[in-house]
């Protein structure tokens, strides 16, 4: 039994199952061979602490099991075998002694009978000599009736009586024949004793051989079916501890004993569970990391967009822009993604109220960029160029946007690079002094609600900007008289393009007009708020598709805004 530790070079601790020191916490487990494995008191999370399982392997000398089994079992077996054999030998010996005694008696009787005739005291010679031929013969003496020695053969024995068998027989020649006498025969029992001793030595030898064979077969069997599988199990545990998900082979010539096979199978099962759990944990952790990165990235983008929204809102006119016009004004500006491509402008210049609503292509950041171009262009048109006719303003805007986006530079055949962006735009010039409203639109219509009926004044079909196709209609203005209680709406297509409803289709400008008519008696703020609520109701679970902007003003009302 080599007693080689599994973990080479590691200090041996405990030695074997025999080791017993003062009891400490965990010694109960240690006694079962679980030393070094954390108990639940240490916290279940520690189970996979590096070194935990290796510690268990290092602390236990598995050969100690065979050693212990041998030391515990062999004395018992040896004692049993030896005792049995000694008892058998003893009984044998007793039988031999008894048989030898009977033989001696028979010999003595036969010799005595042969001598039993008159005058035997003279003729005893041949019979006595015959006795002397027996290999066990030691001594014989013939006595007469008086006890006087007639003859003797051999050496009178001394010493311990158990080494000899002594029998006596009476010599009775007959009722008449005299003299009678006796024969005393002594046979040696030394041969029997030597036999018994030889047998004992043989039994001892056989017992030793038996114990040796037992030890060898125990070593072999335990080594093959217990120790080797346990070593494999421990090696696998060590690998599993390093998250190398190996299982233990249960077949082969070194098939483990049933108990170890059960443990190994349980171990394999556990490894599979740990492996899938570990993979799931890894995936989950990866997912969480990705999610955190995405959340962070999204947070940054949203922060940036919020900042951009503040800038975009700063560009938009405040609610007091048309204060002097005795107009009730309401505005809905709702970009789809924090910022957007919808833009509106309200300003009072030279007694005219100028209201502009524009829907630039795209939404979000690209749309917002375009709104800044439009805002700058509009500022130039209104203040530098001093244009006051809506169709002239639209035409100037078209020119400026094309120039800014360099859309005139290309050949207009639509290479995929270069800008092909533009905007839909509607402009109202409210001339209170002359009681007229001048409207011009490019891709954006005017809705007038008066006397419970809505009128829609479409502008030109094509928007402003974009590469020229040569098919654009000319821009023209429409003039309508101002009337008290008249409500005028300029809105981007995001307001009417609301997907939803039972048939899942766009609400359309007719749907919007219906909603506005339904709420015509509300103050303008309330009417717009009701529209917004109705749009949300129409959408239901559908997301909004676009930015939406609505600028409404009602004549004859008090100045106010939302």
């Amino acid at each position, binding site marked *: 039994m080599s007693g080689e530790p599994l973990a080479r070079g590691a200090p041996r601790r405990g030695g074997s199952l025999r080791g017993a020191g003062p009891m400490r916490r965990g010694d109960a487990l240690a006694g079962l061979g679980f030393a070094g494995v954390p108990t639940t008191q240490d916290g279940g999370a520690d189970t996979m602490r590096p070194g935990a399982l290796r510690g268990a392997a290092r602390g236990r000398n598995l050969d100690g099991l065979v050693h212990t089994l041998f030391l515990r079992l062999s004395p018992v077996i040896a004692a049993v075998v030896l005792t049995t054999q000694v008892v058998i030998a003893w009984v044998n010996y007793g039988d031999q002694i008894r048989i030898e005694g009977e033989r001696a008696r028979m010999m003595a009787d036969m010799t005595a009978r042969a001598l039993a005739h008159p005058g035997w005291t003279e003729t005893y010679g041949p019979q006595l000599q015959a006795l002397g031929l027996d290999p066990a013969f030691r001594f014989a003496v013939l006595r007469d009736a008086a006890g006087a020695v007639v003859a003797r053969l051999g050496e009178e024995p001394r010493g311990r009586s158990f080494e000899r068998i002594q029998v006596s027989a009476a010599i009775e020649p007959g009722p008449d024949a005299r003299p009678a006498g006796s024969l005393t025969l002594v046979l040696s029992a030394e041969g029997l004793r030597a036999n018994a001793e030889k047998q004992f030595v043989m039994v001892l030898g056989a017992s030793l051989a038996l114990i040796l064979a037992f030890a060898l077969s125990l070593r072999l069997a335990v080594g093959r079916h217990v120790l080797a599988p346990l070593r494999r199990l421990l090696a696998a545990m060590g690998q599993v501890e390093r998250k190398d998900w190996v299982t233990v082979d249960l077949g082969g010539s070194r098939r483990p004993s049933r108990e170890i096979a059960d443990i190994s199978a349980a171990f394999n099962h556990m490894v599979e569970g740990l492996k899938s759990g570990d993979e799931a944990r890894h995936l989950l952790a990866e997912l969480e990391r990705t999610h955190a990165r995405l959340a962070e990235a999204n947070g940054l983008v949203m922060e940036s967009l919020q900042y951009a929204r503040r800038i975009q809102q700063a560009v938009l006119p405040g609610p007091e822009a048309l204060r002097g016009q005795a107009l009730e004004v309401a505005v809905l500006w709702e970009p789809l993604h924090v910022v957007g491509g919808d833009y509106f402008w309200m300003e009072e210049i030279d007694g005219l109220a100028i209201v502009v609503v524009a829907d630039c292509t795209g939404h*979000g950041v690209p749309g917002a960029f375009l709104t800044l171009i439009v805002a700058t262009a509009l500022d130039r048109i209104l203040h530098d160029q001093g244009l006051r006719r809506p169709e002239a303003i639209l035409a100037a805007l078209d020119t400026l946007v094309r120039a800014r986006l360099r859309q005139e530079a290309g050949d207009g055949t639509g290479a995929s690079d270069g800008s*092909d962006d533009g905007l839909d735009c509607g402009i109202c010039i409210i001339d209170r002094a002359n009681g007229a409203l001048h409207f011009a639109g490019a891709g954006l219509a005017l809705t007038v609600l008066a006397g419970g009926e809505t009128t829609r004044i479409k502008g030109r079909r094509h928007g402003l900007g974009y590469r020229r196709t040569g098919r654009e209609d000319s821009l023209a203005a429409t003039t309508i008289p101002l009337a008290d209680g008249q409500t005028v709406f300029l809105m981007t297509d995001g307001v009417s393009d609301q997907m939803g409803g039972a048939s899942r289709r766009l609400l359309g400008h007719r749907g919007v007009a219906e909603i506005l008519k339904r709420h015509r008696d509300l103050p303008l703020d309330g009417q717009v708020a009701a529209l917004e609520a109705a749009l949300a109701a129409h959408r239901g679970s559908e997301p909004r598709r676009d930015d939406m902007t609505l600028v409404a003003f009602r004549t004859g009302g008090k100045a106010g805004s939302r």
Partner: protein
Amino acid sequence: MDRIQIPATSRSPLVDFDFPAGRLLLRGESYPEDAATFYGPLLQALRACLEEGGGPLTFDVALSYFNSSSAKALMNLFLPLEDAAEEGREVTIRWLYAEGDDTIAEAGEDFAADFSHARFEMVQETAA
């Protein structure tokens, strides 16, 4: 010219431009973040197909929503078709709209005004 097939997404329509068979189809909703990137390759393929010449061409447009950039992209697709029709090719554009969908029907009517050589059919679909 190979057939172009792109499955629909929530923001872009199904595309099935079967140039060999002379049948083009757009179906679904169209509001991609970048309409130029989506429609650019389609426009190039259409131009290439028209240059090759060939038989009659039918373009089915069945959009339930499109944003203004998509409208512009559609216009860009329609222009070479109208030009091809002017040069004598048989081109039919079928504008499919759901029954009662005024917005899409009106948009179709607006587009129809741009065509004088190609046939532009308004087709009402009863099943949504």
